[in-house]
C-alpha cells in the first residue's frame, strides 16, 4: 500500500517545496524507499506466490516488472539530480521548472506502479492511460518545436490506441457477462480462474483490440510511430524510463490478457500468429531504420522497438522456454536500454548534439560513459556474454524447438542485420576522427549519472552468465502462471 501512497505524498510535497536541493533529495529518498518496499513485497511474493489486499494485487508476473519499474525509477531519479543541474547550468531549462519536472516524474512513476499492482483490468487500463497523460509534458519538457511536436504525436496516437484497448476491455467484460457476478467484474484473478467458461468468440475480439491498443503503447509496429520521436525528444532520464519501463508495463497488460485468452482457447495459435507477425514486423522496421540512422537517441528508440518485437515474438510462441525468455528479456532489455539512454544523456550534454556524424573520440572524452556506451551497444545487439544474449538465445531456441525453421532463420538474420546497422552507424563515434571538429575537453560532467551507469553495466554483464535463484523461481512462477502449467 505504501507503494501507492508514497509517490502521491511526494507529489503533494513537491508542490509545496521551492528549494531545488530539497527537491532532489526528496525525490531520491522517496524512490529509494519505494525500491525497499518493493523488495519487501518481492520477498513476500517469492514466499507465498502472490500478495494482495482488496484492489492491490501482485503476483510473480507483476512483481518482476514492478521491481524493474522501481529500480529504474530510482536510478533515473539519482541520475536526474546531476542531469538537471547540468541543464540548469547551461540554461537549457529554468530552475523554476524543476518542481514541475519532479511532480510529473513521480506522477508518472505512480501511475505505472498502479497499473502494475491492481487486480482490476479496468483500473489497469485507467492507470495506463494516465501514464500517457503524465508523461506527455515530460516528453514536451524542453518546450521547443520538436519537443512539442513529439508530445502531440505521442498523446494523440497513444490515446487513440488506448481507446481501442478500452474497446477490448469492454469485450473482455462482455465475454464474461453472466458467468461473473457484478462485484468482481474485470477482476483478473477471477477471469483467469473462470477462463474456461468465458465466451471465446468475444474473447478473441477482445484480445485483438487489446493487443492493438496496448501494442500501440508498447511500440509494436505498425503502431510504433510515436516512439522514436518521443524517445529522442524527451530528457534522457525520461527516455530511459519510457523505453525501460513504460513499454514493459504496456506489454504487461498484453501478457495478462494473453494468459486468459490462451487458457480459454486452449491453443496459442490464434494469438500466436498475430504476435509473431507483429514481432517480426517490428524487428524488420527497426532493422531498416537503424541501418542508416543519423541520430543516436532515435537509433536507441528503434532498438527498443526491436526488443519489444522480440518480447512479443517470444510471447507469441508461447512455449515454456519462450515465455521464460520473453520475461527474462524484459529485465535485460530494460536494464541495458535505460543504461544506454542515460549514457546518451551524458553524451548529449557533453557534445550538445544528437547527430552521430558530429561526435568523435568518445572513449577519451568521456572515459566512463563512453566505455559503458560501447559495451552497452554490444550488449543490446545481442553479443555474448551479456544478458540480452542470454534471453534472446532462449527465444531463438524455442522457435527451433517448435520446428519453425524458416521463421527462426528470418529472426536470426534480422538480429544480425541490426547488429551490422549499429556497427556501421555508431562505432565510429568512439574513436578520434580528425575530419570531425575536435571533441570538447575530457571529463565526466554528471558524477551521479556515471555512477548509475557503471552500476548498470556491472549488472548487465553478470546477468548473461549467472542468475540468482530467487529471480529464477520468480520467472518460473510467472511463466507457469502465464502458460497455465
Amino acid at each position: 500500500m505504501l507503494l501507492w501512497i508514497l509517490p502521491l505524498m511526494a507529489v503533494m510535497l513537491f508542490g509545496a517545496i521551492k528549494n531545488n536541493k530539497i527537491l532532489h533529495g526528496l525525490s531520491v529518498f522517496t524512490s529509494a524507499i519505494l525500491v525497499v518496499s518493493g523488495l519487501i513485497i518481492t520477498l513476500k511474493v517469492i514466499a507465498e506466490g502472490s500478495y494482495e489486499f482488496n484492489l492491490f494485487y501482485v503476483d510473480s508476473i507483476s512483481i518482476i516488472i514492478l521491481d524493474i519499474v522501481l529500480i529504474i525509477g530510482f536510478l533515473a531519479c539519482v541520475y536526474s539530480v546531476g542531469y538537471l543541474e547540468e541543464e540548469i547550468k547551461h540554461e537549457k531549462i529554468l530552475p523554476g521548472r524543476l518542481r514541475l519536472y519532479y511532480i510529473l516524474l513521480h506522477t508518472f512513476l505512480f501511475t505505472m506502479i498502479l497499473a502494475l499492482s491492481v487486480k482490476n483490468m479496468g483500473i489497469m487500463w485507467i492507470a495506463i492511460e494516465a501514464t500517457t497523460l503524465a508523461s506527455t509534458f515530460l516528453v514536451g519538457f524542453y518546450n521547443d518545436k520538436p519537443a512539442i511536436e513529439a508530445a502531440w504525436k505521442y498523446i494523440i496516437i497513444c490515446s487513440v490506441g488506448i481507446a481501442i484497448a478500452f474497446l477490448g476491455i469492454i469485450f473482455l467484460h462482455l465475454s464474461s457477462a453472466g458467468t461473473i457476478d457484478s462485484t468482481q467484474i474485470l477482476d483478473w484473478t477471477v477471469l483467469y480462474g473462470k477462463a474456461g467458461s468465458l465466451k471465446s468468440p468475444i474473447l478473441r475480439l477482445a484480445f485483438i483490440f487489446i493487443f492493438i491498443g496496448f501494442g500501440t503503447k508498447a511500440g509494436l509496429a505498425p503502431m510504433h510511430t510515436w516512439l522514436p520521436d518521443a524517445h529522442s525528444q524527451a530528457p534522457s532520464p525520461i527516455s530511459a524510463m519510457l523505453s525501460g519501463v513504460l513499454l514493459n508495463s504496456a506489454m504487461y497488460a498484453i501478457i495478462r490478457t494473453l494468459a486468459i485468452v490462451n487458457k480459454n482457447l486452449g491453443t496459442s495459435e490464434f494469438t500466436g500468429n498475430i504476435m509473431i507477425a507483429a514481432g517480426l514486423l517490428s524487428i524488420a522496421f527497426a532493422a531498416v531504420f537503424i541501418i542508416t540512422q543519423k541520430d543516436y537517441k532515435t537509433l536507441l528508440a528503434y532498438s527498443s522497438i526491436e526488443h519489444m518485437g522480440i518480447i512479443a515474438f517470444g510471447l507469441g510462441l508461447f512455449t515454456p522456454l519462450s515465455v521464460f525468455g520473453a520475461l527474462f528479456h524484459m529485465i535485460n532489455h530494460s536494464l541495458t536500454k535505460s543504461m544506454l539512454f542515460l549514457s546518451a544523456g551524458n553524451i548529449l550534454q557533453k557534445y550538445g548534439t544528437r547527430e552521430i556524424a558530429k561526435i568523435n573520440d568518445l572513449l577519451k572524452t568521456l572515459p566512463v560513459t563512453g566505455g559503458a556506451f560501447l559495451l552497452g551497444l554490444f550488449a543490446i545487439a545481442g553479443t555474448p556474454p551479456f544478458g540480452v544474449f542470454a534471453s534472446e538465445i532462449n527465444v531463438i531456441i524455442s522457435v527451433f524447438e517448435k520446428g519453425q525453421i524458416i521463421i527462426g532463420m528470418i529472426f536470426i538474420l534480422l538480429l544480425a542485420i541490426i547488429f551490422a546497422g549499429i556497427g556501421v552507424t555508431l562505432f565510429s563515434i568512439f574513436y578520434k576522427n580528425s575530419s570531425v571538429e575536435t571533441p570538447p575537453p575530457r571529463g565526466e560532467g554528471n558524477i551521479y549519472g556515471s555512477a548509475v551507469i557503471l552500476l548498470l553495466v556491472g549488472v548487465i554483464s553478470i546477468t548473461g552468465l549467472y542468475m540468482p535463484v530467487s529471480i529464477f523461481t520468480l520467472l518460473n512462477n510467472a511463466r507457469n502462471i502465464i502458460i497455465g502449467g
Partner: protein
Amino acid sequence: MTIKYLFQISIGLYVIAGFSAVILSKWHKISNTASNILCMAASVFGIAASIDQLISAQGPVILWKINSSIPLMNFTMTVDNVSSFFILMLSILVFPVSLYSIGYLSHYYGKRNVGLFNTLYSVFILSMILVFTASNTIFFFIAWEIMSVVSYFLVVFESEVEENRRAGTLYIIMTHLGAALMLIGFMIMYSFTNSFALNSDSALIPEFYRNIIFLLLVIGFGTKAGVVPLHIWLPYAHPAAPSNVSALMSGIMIKTAVYGILRFIMIYLGVQNTWWGILILVIGISSALIGVVYAFVENNIKKLLAFSSIENIGIIFIGLGICFIAISTKNETVAALALLASLFHAFNHTIFKGSLFLGAGSIHFSTHTKDMDQLGGLIKKIPIAALFILGGSLSISALVPFNGFIGEWLILQSIFAGIQPGNAGINILFILTVTALALAGALAAGTFIKFFGITFLGLPRSSHASEAQPIPMVMNAASGMLVLLCLVIGIFPAPFIQLISHAAFEITGVSVAVNFKGSFLLTAFPLSVSGNVISPFSSLIIFLLSILAVLLIIRFIGGKYAEKKYGTWDCGFEGLNSRMQYTATGFSKPVKIVFRMLFRPSRDLKITGDDTYHPESMEYIMTTESIFEKYIYDPVLKFTERSSGVIRRKLQTGSIHLYLIYMFAAILAAMLYNRLF
C-alpha cells in the same frame, strides 16, 4: 589425470596474466613484462598438456563443468585429441609471441594503456582455448563471439588511424554475420536432435537439412577463415592490429574455422555427398590462387602477409576438400593422408606465418613504415631480423629443407594417391588442383622474393630505411625460435607427423602414420608415402657437402680468395642512387599485367613541363582495385543504404495522419483476421 591439471594450470595462468595486467597497469613496463611472462609460462603448460593428451591414447578429458542457473547455459570444457592439437598450435605460437610482446610493446609505454592491451591479449587467447574446448554448440557460439569481439578491440587498438577503424568495423560486421549463419546451422541441428551436445546423433537430421547446415556452416566458418570471396575483411583487419596480435590472428585465429569445420562437419555431420568436398576444394583453389596473386602485387608488408594467409588457408581447404571427396568415395587411406596433410600444413602455417608477422612487426618497429617502396637495404641495419625473415620466407615458399615443403609434398602425394582410373570428373578436378598448387607455390615464392628482396636488399629508398632503429633482442629471439622450429620440422618431419596423426586418427579412424617409414633422427629412413620417398635430411647433407667440396676445389684451382669492392655498374652515369633500382611496384608489374582481370589496373602519367622529352618532372601513379569489393560488396552496400533511406523517408514521414492511417489499417486487418481465421 595429470593432463587435466596441466590444462587447468595453463588456463589459470592465462587468467592471472589478464588480471595482473590490469592491476599493475599503472606501471606499464612491469605489467607488460609480468603478464607476458605469465602467458609464456601458461603456454609451456599448454604445450606439455596437449602433447601429453595427443600421445596418451586416452579419450576426451573433461576440464570444467559449470552449470549456469540460466536455462540451457552449461559451460563444459572437454579436450580430445583434435582440440588438443589446436591448443598445441596455439600454445606453440603464444610462447614466442608473448616473448616478442615484452620488447615490442615498449613503444607503447607512456603512450597507450598497455595494461588494457595485455588483458585483451590474454582474454583473446583464453577465448580461443574456449572455442577449442567447448562441448556444446551454445557454449561454442558464446566463445566464438567473445573471440570476435575481443579481437575487434585489438584490431582497433591503434584507433587514431582512420583505416584501422574502418577495418575493425568491417571485420566485426562480417564475422558477426558469419556467426549468425553458424547459429542458424546449430539451431537447425538442435531442432532435429533436441540436444546441443557435440556428440549427439546427427542421423536424426534429414538429408535436405544436412545440406543446408553444411552450406550455412561453410559460409559461417569461411567468413572467419577469410576464404574467397568472403575474405575482404582479412587484408584490412590483420594489418590493422598490432603485429603480435596479427601474428595470433593470422597464425591461429583463422584456424578456428578449420577446427569448426572438422568438429561440426566431419565429426558431427559426417560427410555424405561428394559435392561437399568439391565445394570445399573449389573454395580452396580459388582462395589459394586469388590470395597469392593479390599478395604478389601488394606493397604493404603486413597486407602482403595477410593475403598470403588467405592463400595458405586456401591450401588447407584444398587438403580438406580432397579428404572430403575421398571419404565420400570410400577411400579411407587417401582421406586420412589428405587430412593429415592439411593439418600438417595448418601447423606449419601457424609457425612460419607467426614468425613472418613478428618479423614484419620488427621492421615496422625499427623503420615506422609498412610501405615497401620506402624500405630497402635493411639487411645491413638489422641483420639478425633479416636472417630470420629470410628463413621464414624460404619456409613459406615451400622450399627444401623447410617445413613448408613437407606440407606441400604431402598434399601433392595425397592427390597423387587420390587419382585413380575411373571417376573422370574427380581426376580432372584433382589435376587442376595440382596446377593451382604449382602456380600458387611459384607465385608465393615470387611474393617472398619481392618481400625480402625489396625490403632488405638494394639501397634504402627513404630516410625510414636509412635511419632504421636497432631491434630488441627478445623480439629477434622470438621470431628466431619459430624459424628454427620450421627448419627442424623440415629436416625431421617424421616425429611431428606422428604427433599430428593422432589427431587425424581420431577423425578418420584410419591411421596413416604406419605408412610413414621414418623415425626420429635417422637419416637413412626417409619420409615415404606408399613407396614415394623423400629425405630432406640427406639432400641437406649433399647440399652442405657439395658446398664444402666446391670450396675445396676452388681453393685448389683458383687459389686464395681475393675480392675487390667496387660500385655497382651504373651505365657510366655518376653514381647509382636508390631511385634507379627496381621498386616493389615495378617488380610486380609483369604479374600484374598477366592477371589484369583481377586488378583492373588504372594508371595516370603526369608530365609537367612543355617538352615531353625533357620534362621538368614526371609522376606515374598506378592504382589497382579488388574486383570483389568493386563488383560484389560495394553494390550490395549501396543498394542497402539507398533502399533503407528510401523506406525511411516513405514510412516515417512525420505526418501524424499517416501514422493514424497505419493504426486504422492495423485495426481493420486484425478484425479481418479475426473474422477469417
